[in-house]
């Protein structure tokens, strides 16, 4: 990762950015997000298979913003998250520098948004293969089987909202579940409250999910909730031929329409 480190060093040294958001070695053999402000400490930056968190989630975090301009280590899902955040006016392109990392873990120079756009265009933007397999398996089930599968999974949910907090697209100051007039989602983590919550989350990420899978990974009780949003991503592509996070000017699938949108169920 010599390029990543030297580039981070250069950016901090020249004061082009005030913080580098990347990964460092964590406890018990894990890797974890790191925030480096001192050029002498860029040596701790790492990138390997353990670096899984979607760092884009920090771009909208208040305390990280206090630093000023940020450089961010970005794999494809993180780049796509950044595109979405710029499109939705949560992040300004001029305030970030992207330190690209390819699928093979190699540093790639992302000189600007256009370069990032070009890079994303060369990538496979579908869901990760193993998730796509699970989706296909689930899609083959009968309605009742699907219902039973999800009810079993969702009964585990304790409403800790790790899925929401880990998602870079869930940046709302007040989430709809916190709205109590009316109380759309039952607060209790019973089967009903859990089911409503996960439907709401998936609907709100329709056309916005960039298939990083971070929600499912963050879940402390292992609910594969990422499959819900990934299914939506899949269908958005299916119906509207759109992959989220390909440009910094995405027009949201759910806030636009084509008069000839195809469906077969409206009488």
């Amino acid at each position, binding site marked *: 990762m010599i390029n990543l480190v030297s580039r981070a060093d250069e950016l901090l040294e020249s004061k082009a950015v005030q913080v580098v958001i990347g990964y460092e070695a964590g406890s018990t053999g894990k890797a974890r997000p790191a925030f480096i402000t001192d050029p002498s400490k860029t040596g701790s930056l790492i990138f390997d298979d353990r670096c899984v968190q979607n760092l884009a989630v920090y771009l909208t975090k208040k305390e990280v913003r206090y630093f000023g301009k940020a450089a961010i280590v970005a794999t494809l899902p993180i780049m796509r998250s950044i595109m979405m955040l710029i499109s939705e006016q949560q992040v300004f392109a001029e305030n970030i520098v992207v330190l690209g990392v390819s699928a093979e873990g190699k540093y790639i120079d992302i000189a600007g948004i256009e370069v990032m756009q070009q890079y994303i265009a060369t990538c496979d933007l579908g869901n990760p293969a193993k998730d796509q397999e699970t989706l296909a398996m689930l899609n083959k089930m009968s309605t009742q*089987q699907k219902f039973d599968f999800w009810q079993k999974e969702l009964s585990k949910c304790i409403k800790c909202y790790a899925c929401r907090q880990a998602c870079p697209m869930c940046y709302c100051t007040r989430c709809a579940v916190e709205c109590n007039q009316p109380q759309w989602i039952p607060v209790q983590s*019973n089967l*009903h409250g859990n089911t*409503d919550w996960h439907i709401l989350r*998936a609907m709100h990420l*329709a056309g916005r999910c960039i298939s990083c899978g971070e929600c499912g990974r963050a879940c402390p009780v292992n609910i594969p909730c990422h499959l819900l949003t990934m299914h939506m991503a899949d269908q958005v592509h299916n119906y509207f031929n759109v992959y989220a996070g390909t440009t910094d000017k995405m027009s949201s699938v759910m806030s636009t329409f084509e008069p000839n949108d195809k469906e077969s169920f409206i*009488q």
Partner: protein
Amino acid sequence: MSEFEPKVVAFVCNWCTYAGADLTGTSRIRYASNVKIIRFPCTGRIDFMLLLKSFANGADGIIVSGCHPNDCHYTSGNFHAKRRWIMFKELMDFMGIDMNRITFSWVSAAEGARWAEVVNTTVARIRELGPYVSYKQMVNTAVEEEVTND
């Protein structure tokens, strides 16, 4: 035991389907009284969460209806609604929530007879499907330790 009477909630827009249902009335066309209408300004106003709330509170079926494409009083509310319904239906299908229980339709202000037909076919279909037991069970499932009052 009395025969199962489906509870059906209809979410309709003010300008087309609500007016169409008014016309059904003015034309004295009879239809099943199982359906009850809630009036919205536009199909674009209909929140998908309200459909879930209906099932959670005992509805066995739902009708969502508005202006035909290109006829929206607000020019494009129904197009946006259509996209939402496409995605909503996909998600519901994926989660095993029975989409046969929701009728999506376009009924204009001039289609009084069509409204009656939409209602009657929906009620007949729901009658056949029976009460939405699995959803009701889901809603009533308590947490293991919970002390309930029944």
